[in-house]
């Protein structure tokens, strides 16, 4: 029995006279999405091409970025926002490669959010016509949920991961635009079939594009560079 009005119907949806219903229908991630929208407008205004690089830990994101920086540095200013739980290791590698880096240590946090990117942008103050990579925390689950304001999301997987990865982690594949299949130099040693992997990935997201490469040997990297250059009039 309701303690206040004595009624027995606990499914009634009228409020008691001292209570009021407020209808909200507010997306809980709206604050993140608003900030992401602001980041996106900032990038558009400054003509900064921003890529959100996501993956499992160890797929080779940083190595891909090191090579990419080496290629573009003669004619383009590059920036990287690094996300890791701890250490400055990746930011150091990026700076040695020739780009400006900011490291965000998330501690127990499992993803970067739009607010962290916004703060980093204030420090980096990227130039017009530059390219900015966000190297997200190595995690195929949580970063999928958080829009950072990027132009596109690039998922790096390695041939040492399974062909069924897209089916097991659909959220990440659904929200990405390009999949880089890295470590192609290891193909003779693993049971990975790229066709099967891509078939699974297309089941989850039929808009996905794919590039196979080896950041270690440099094979296939030109396709990635061409893809970047084709993204916008940069």
């Amino acid at each position: 029995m309701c303690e206040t009005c004595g009624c027995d119907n606990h499914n009634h949806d009228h409020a008691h006279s001292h209570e009021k219903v407020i209808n909200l229908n507010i997306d809980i991630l709206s604050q993140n999405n608003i900030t992401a929208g602001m980041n996106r407008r900032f990038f558009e205004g400054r003509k900064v091409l921003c890529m959100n690089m996501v993956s499992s830990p160890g797929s080779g994101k940083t190595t891909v970025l090191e090579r990419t920086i080496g290629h573009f540095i003669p004619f383009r200013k590059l920036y990287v926002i690094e996300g890791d739980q701890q250490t400055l290791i990746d930011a150091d590698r990026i700076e040695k490669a020739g780009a400006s880096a900011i490291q965000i240590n998330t501690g127990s946090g499992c993803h970067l959010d739009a607010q962290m990117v916004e703060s980093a942008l204030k420090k980096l103050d990227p130039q017009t016509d530059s390219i900015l990579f966000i190297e997200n925390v190595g995690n195929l689950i949580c970063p999928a949920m958080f829009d950072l304001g990027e132009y596109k999301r690039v998922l790096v997987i390695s041939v040492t991961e399974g062909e069924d990865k897209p089916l097991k982690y659909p959220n990440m594949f659904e929200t990405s635009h390009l999949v880089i299949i890295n470590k192609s130099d290891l193909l003779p040693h693993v049971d990975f079939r790229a066709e099967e992997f891509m078939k699974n990935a297309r089941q989850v997201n039929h808009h996905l594009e794919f590039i196979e490469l080896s950041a270690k040997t440099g094979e296939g990297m030109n396709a990635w560079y061409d893809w970047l250059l084709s993204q916008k009039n940069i």
Partner: protein
Amino acid sequence: MHEFSLAGEVIKLARHEAEKHKSMAVSEITIEVGNFSGVEAEAFESVLGLLSEGSILEKARLNILRLKGKGICAACNKEFEMDQRMDTCPECQSYPSEIKGGNEFRVVSLLIEEE
């Protein structure tokens, strides 16, 4: 994993709305969690319960509504309910060509105590 920060966002939202209406307490909060929103509903509910202590949601009933998605089969066009993102058509086991809903994560309403 990040259910803590999400619960924190909900408490902030509830406090903001309650204060707008000059209320000091929320007696019920209704939240929709889609099955493939990326939010684990059970974990989220426990964490929200824990974090609510000492907050505006301290006395609130947590009404978490889990929502399924609706898929349209790529092969036979049948509409079917989806519990998981990679569910297949119950008739022909094909994947859906289109998915509607299932990724909601929103505060639907609050029941606030008025002065």
